[in-house]
C-alpha cells in the first residue's frame, strides 16, 4: 500500500499516474461548464459506438444549487471529479478500481469497502447504467457504473465508468473536516495553499451570482439560442461544400447541448423553473443529447465505416 498523500493535488496526481500506468489516456478537463465529469465528450460521446476507449481526466464540475458561499464544510457549487471511462469494461475493473484506492493510501485491511447498489440515470443525457456507489467506512467515495444506454443508444460494447468525488475523497484520506482547510499543494511548500485560499473567494462570488444576480432573461435566451444552434449544426449537409469532405459536426453540436444543460442548471438555481416546467426543460436537453448521439455514431470516431 502506498504512503498517505499530504495534499489534494497529490491525490489527483496519483490517480492520474495510476490510471496512466493501466493504459488510460490522461486527458485534460473539457473547456466548458458542465455539471459532472460524465458530460465531457470523452465520456458521453466516446461511450457510444464500437471503438475501444480508455481515458482518465479531472473535470471541474458546477452545480449552482449546491453553492453555500464557501461556508459549508462539504458543499460547493464548483468542485472536481476524477473520471475514468474504459470501453469495453475490462473483467477486472473492480480490482483495478480498488487498486486506485490503495494508490491514494487507503488500506483495504483497515477500512470497510462496500459496493452498494446505485443505478445511475441521467435524464438530461438520455442515459442509464447499473452499478454501485462505493462506500469506505460508510462514506460514498465513488460512483461505479456500467453504461447501458447513452443518448437513447444501447451501448455495445459496454463502458465501465468510475467517478471519484475528489474533494470528499481527499478530505477523507487526509482527515480534513472542512473543505476550505484542506491543503491544496504540499503543506511544506514555500507557498502552502489551502483549498480555501484558492476557492473561498470564488465560492462566495458565484453563490451570490448563481442565486440572485444571474439575469434570467439572458439565461433563458442563451438556452434557446444554444438549443437552436445545436439542431442547426446537425441539419447542415454532411458533405462540406468547401472541402468536399464528409464532415458530420457531432462535437460542435454537443457543445451547444452542454451549454443548454448548464444554462438550465443556472435557471434552476435562480428558482425560476417550476416543477412541471422542469420536466419540459430536461426533455429539451435530452432531445439535443439524442441528436448529438445519433450524429456521433455516424462519424468515424463513432465507429461508422470511414
Amino acid at each position, binding site marked *: 500500500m502506498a504512503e498517505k498523500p499530504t495534499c489534494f493535488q497529490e491525490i489527483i496526481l496519483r490517480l492520474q499516474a495510476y490510471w496512466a500506468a493501466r493504459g488510460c489516456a490522461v486527458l485534460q478537463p473539457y473547456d466548458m461548464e458542465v455539471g459532472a465529469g460524465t458530460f465531457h465528450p470523452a465520456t458521453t460521446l466516446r461511450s457510444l459506438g464500437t471503438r475501444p476507449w480508455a481515458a482518465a481526466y479531472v473535470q471541474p464540475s458546477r452545480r449552482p444549487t449546491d453553492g453555500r458561499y464557501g461556508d459549508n464544510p462539504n458543499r460547493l457549487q464548483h468542485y472536481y471529479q476524477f473520471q475514468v471511462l474504459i470501453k469495453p469494461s475490462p473483467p477486472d475493473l473492480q480490482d483495478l478500481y480498488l487498486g486506485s484506492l490503495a494508490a491514494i493510501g487507503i488500506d483495504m485491511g483497515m477500512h470497510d469497502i462496500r459496493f452498494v447498489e446505485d443505478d445511475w440515470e441521467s435524464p438530461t443525457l438520455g442515459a442509464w447504467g447499473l452499478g454501485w456507489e462505493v462506500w469506505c467506512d460508510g462514506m460514498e467515495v465513488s460512483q461505479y457504473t456500467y453504461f447501458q444506454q447513452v443518448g437513447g443508444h444501447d451501448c455495445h460494447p*459496454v463502458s465501465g465508468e468510475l467517478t471519484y468525488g475528489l474533494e470528499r475523497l481527499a478530505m477523507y484520506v487526509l482527515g480534513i473536516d472542512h473543505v476550505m482547510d484542506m491543503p491544496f499543494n504540499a503543506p511544506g511548500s514555500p507557498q502552502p495553499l489551502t483549498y480555501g485560499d484558492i476557492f473561498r473567494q470564488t465560492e462566495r462570488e458565484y453563490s451570490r451570482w448563481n442565486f440572485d444576480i444571474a439575469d434570467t432573461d439572458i439565461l433563458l435566451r442563451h438556452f434557446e439560442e444554444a438549443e437552436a444552434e445545436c439542431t442547426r449544426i446537425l441539419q447542415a449537409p454532411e458533405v462540406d461544400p468547401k472541402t468536399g469532405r464528409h464532415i458530420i459536426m457531432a462535437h460542435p453540436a454537443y457543445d451547444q447541448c452542454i451549454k443548454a444543460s448548464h444554462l438550465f442548471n443556472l435557471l434552476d438555481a435562480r428558482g425560476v423553473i417550476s416543477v412541471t416546467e422542469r420536466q419540459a426543460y430536461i426533455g429539451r436537453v435530452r432531445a439535443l443529447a439524442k441528436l448529438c448521439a445519433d450524429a456521433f455514431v455516424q462519424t468515424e470516431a463513432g465507429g461508422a465505416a470511414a
Partner: protein
Amino acid sequence: MPDLLIELFSEEIPARMQAKASENLRKMVADGLVEAGLTYASAASFATPRRLALTIDGLTAESPDTREERRGPKVGAPDKAIDGFCRGAGVERSALETRDTGKGEFYFAVIARKGRKAPEIVAETLDRTIRNFPWPKSMRWGDGTLRWVRPLQSILCILTDEAGAEVVPFEIEGVTASNTTRGHRFMAPDAFSVANFDDYETKLKRAKVVLRADERADAIWHDATNRAFAAGLELVEDPGLLAEVAGLVEWPVVLMGEIGADFLGLPPEVLQTSMKEHQKFFSVRDPKSGRIVRFVTVANIEAPDDGATILAGNQKVLAARLSDAKFFWENDLRVAGAGMTPWLDALENVTFERRLGTQRDRIERIAALVREIAPLVGAEPDLAERAARVVKADLSSEMVYEFPELQGLMGRYYSEAAGLPAEVAAACQEHYSPLGPSDAVPSAAVSVAVALADKLDTLTGFWAIDEKPTGSKDPFALRRAALGVIRLILANGLETGLAGHLRQAAGLHRWADEQAPEQGVVDLVGFFHDRLKVHLRDEGVRYDVIDACLAMPGSDDLALLVKRAEALAAFLKTDDGENLLQGFKRANNILTQAEEKDGVEYSFGADRKFAEGPEEIALFDALDAADPRIAAAMQAENFAAAMGAMAGLRAPTDAFFDAVQVNADSGVVRRNRLNLLSRIRGLCLSVADLTRIEG
C-alpha cells in the same frame, strides 16, 4: 445418486434482490432438471452479496429412456399431411408403422428417446436458467451480450457421488464452469476448490464468508442486541434494515458507535431516519429516556484495530449528515415558532398538479370541505379548519425536503413548537393515514375529518381532470386514497351517504361541463364500491354477498353497506339461511317463469281465504309475523334482526314447497299462490338482493 452444487459468482448483487434470486435459481434449475426427466431428493439455495448458490441432493444420474407413440394421418392421406406429421414427430417417413385401429389403417410414429446423463442435462438447464433469469434489472458488460444483474465472473458446477466430484462441462459466454470459488474479497481472496456442498460451506466459512443470509442476519441481530444490552441500552428493531444489511456483507462485524452529543436533541425519528436512509445504521435507544443515543453499523471486515478506524470513519460521516439534519431542524423551529407563515406562503408556488393548482389552492379546498365533514365525525368545524390550514405546512420545511418520508411527523413537531392545539398537531401527523392496508386508522375527530377531506379532494380532483387509475397504472395512488376513505369510515363507524360528500368535494373543482360533476360522483361511488369489494374480500366476505348488498338503495353509505353484508354473510352461513336462500330461489324461479308466460307481474293480493291445506296457511301466518318484524328491523338498520326474522320463514317455506303444487288447476288458486310467492320474494329482497347470491 450424485449431488449437484452450483455457484454463480458475480460482482455485488443488490441486497434487495438476493432472496428472490436465490429462490428463482432453485426453482428454475430444479424444475428444469425434472422436466428433462431427472428426479432429486432435496434442494436448497443461498445468496450472499457476491454469489448465488444451489445444492441439489440425490439427483438421478441419468434420465430414463422414453418411448412415445403418436397416431398420424390415415394411410392414403395426401403426402403433404404425412410429411408434416413426420416433421412434427421427428421421424423419417420410412420409419412409420401402419396399424389398423378398427376405424381404418393409420400411420404411427414411435418416438424413442434415449435417456441422457445428468451432466448434459444440468449444463443445458443451467444455460437456460442463466439466460432467462428474471432479475428486476439486468445488464450487459464488456463486449458480451449475456445479461446478468452485474458481471458474472465465475461458475462452480460439480456433481459429486461416491467416486468423487466431477466438474459439469459447461461454458457460457467465455465463463467456464469449474470446481473452484473464492472467499471474502479482502480477507480471503484466493481461489480454492470444493468437493461437495458441506465442503463448500465449511471452506467458505474458513474463507470468511457466511453462506446463509439468515445466519448472517441472526449473527448481526445477536451481536447488536448484546452490545446494546451490555451498555444498558436496547436496539431498535427493524427487520427490513436487518435483511438489507445481511445482504451487504459476507462476513458481518457489528460495531457500536456514539452519536455526537450535539445531535441527541434531534427528534428520535429524525435520527433514526437519517441513520437508516443514509448510512444503513441501526438505532440504539436508551430505554429510560426513549431517546436514540447510539448507532450500530455492520462492517464486512475484521480489521486489526478491531474496527476502530472503521467506526471513526462512520462516526465522522454520521456527524456530517446529522449536522445537516440539525441545521434543518433549527432553521425549521425558528420558522415554526414564528407561526409557519413563510411555509404557507411558499406553498403558493408549489404546483400540486398543473390542472389542480398549487398546494395552497388545495389547502383552501380541504379547509372548506373539512367544515362540512367535521360535524359528521364530531369535530369542531373551526378547529378542523384550523388544522386543515396547517397540515401541509411542513412540506415547505427543510427537514421534509431532505427526508420526504418524515412529512406529517415533522408537521406535528412544528405545530407543537408553534403552540397550536394538540388536536391540530395530531392531525398534521395523522391526516395522511391510513397509507397502506396495514397502516393504523386515526380515530381523533379532527384527524379523521382532515384525513377524509384531503382524500376526497384528491379523488374528486383527479376525476375532474379525468386522470383515473387504469389497469395497473395508478400514478396518483387513487386506489390507496379510496381505500383510506373506506377504512376511515368503517373503523370510525361513520354512517353517512358518501355521494353527498363527494358532491361537496366535486363542487370545489373545475369540471369539463355542467353534467360532469354529477357523472363524476356516480362514477366515484362505483369506484368506491370496487375498492370496498376488494377490501371486504380480503376480510373474507364473499363477492356475491357484497353484490347482493350493493344492489340495495343507500349503498353509498359504506358503513351501512358493510353491516348489511356482514349480517347477510353470517345468515347465509346458518342452516336456515342456506335453506331459505334455496326457497327464495325456487319461489323466484317459479314466479319469473309464470310472469314471463302470463305477461303480468304477481305482486299483490295473496289472500288467505283461498289457501288450501295447513302448509299454505302456515306460510301466510309466517309471512304475516315476519313482515312487521323485518320492516321494523330494517327501519332501525338492524340487519341481524332482519335476517333473524327471515330465518323464521325457512321452515314454512320448505314445508309449503314440499306439500303444495303452485301451478294448481284452479286459476284462482294458482294466482293466489303466485302472489304468495311474491310476498316471500318481496320480503327477502327488502333485506338484500338475494338473486345475486350464487349457489
